[in-house]
């Protein structure tokens, strides 16, 4: 299996480093170059990971989409709450957009890892179809 989980963890780590850098400067405005670079690198890694995963054959895509879809809903709620906290604390402008970008990557990356970990262990035939359930 390609290193989707490992790439996912690297993406998450990079986003977190950028976030910690910004948090460590609060309430002052952090220099934005470093977190912007972290965000860009994380975004590239995420896209690369999605491309790599799209080429896995066979793969239980129906299971992946089901698991990742529900996980995405949960993590969008969490990311939304954190965006609310930042806006409530009067974070504005480029700083806010960078944080939103990081939270979007977080909200997509974690469900990707969860969905991939579940789907990789599902049995599929070469056509990508799952076997029929065993009759009672």
């Amino acid at each position, binding site marked *: 299996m390609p290193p989707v*989980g490992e790439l*996912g*963890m690297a993406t*998450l*780590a990079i986003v*977190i*480093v950028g*976030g*910690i850098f910004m*948090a*460590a*400067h*609060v*309430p*002052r405005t952090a220099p934005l170059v470093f977190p912007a670079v972290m965000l860009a690198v994380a975004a590239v890694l995420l896209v690369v990971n999605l491309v790599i995963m799209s080429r896995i054959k066979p793969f239980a895509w129906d*299971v992946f989409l089901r*698991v990742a879809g*529900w*996980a995405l809903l*949960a993590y969008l*709620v*969490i990311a939304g*709450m*954190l965006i*609310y*906290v930042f806006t*409530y*604390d009067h974070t504005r402008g480029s700083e806010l957009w960078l944080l939103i970008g990081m939270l979007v990557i977080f909200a997509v990356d*974690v469900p990707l*890892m*969860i969905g*991939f*970990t*579940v789907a990789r*262990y*599902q*049995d599929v035939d070469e056509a990508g179809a799952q076997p029929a*359930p*065993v009759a*009672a």
Partner: protein
Amino acid sequence: MDVVDESAGGVAVEAPTAPPPAPASGPPGPAAGPPGGPPVVPEFEIVPLKGLPIVAALLIFLVASIAGNWLWALDFFHVAGGGLWTGIDLFVGLVVGPILGKLSIQGRIEFMTRFMPKMLLIMPTLVTMTLASGWQLARHLGNLSASSPNHSWLVASYIVVGIMAVIALGILEPANVAVLFELKKPRPNGERIGRLMRRFIYTAGITGLMQIATLVIMSRVATN
């Protein structure tokens, strides 16, 4: 041969060739299964739906606390949430894990099908509560300011929590969900379940130990 046990409402499991070893040092015990046949997986929900209203209520209360600047509530969420998060991680990693390794296959399955779904809701809720309220608390108490004597301790806690987040979200939670899906299969793979559970237990223990560092930091902040 695996048999679907309709009376138990569950399915049989391909028993692994060896049970998952406990996190403590020592060789794994001998394979053990129920004397009458292959283990049976009881019916269970991957996401316990009855728990969702509780999660929703807590998160709504959290948002209200933030919006209303209720310091007592933020303190409650942060202390209770952080304490439970740490306690559960340590308890699971250092107590439950070794016990689980010594149970029979059937015993482990019975435990996992009841325990893992609850953990799927409990841990992300506790983490969200703890971190969101902690940030707001730090803002109210002036600890975020670079001139605060607690500032460097807080940055240290960000780093510790950041490392824990990568481990928990990248390894622990996916393993949690994967175990539940494996148990839902008509013929769950016991060896795979054992491998994933080892991953879950070990990472819970590691994050629990890192949580001790967070507790030390928070004690310093509280008394500074």
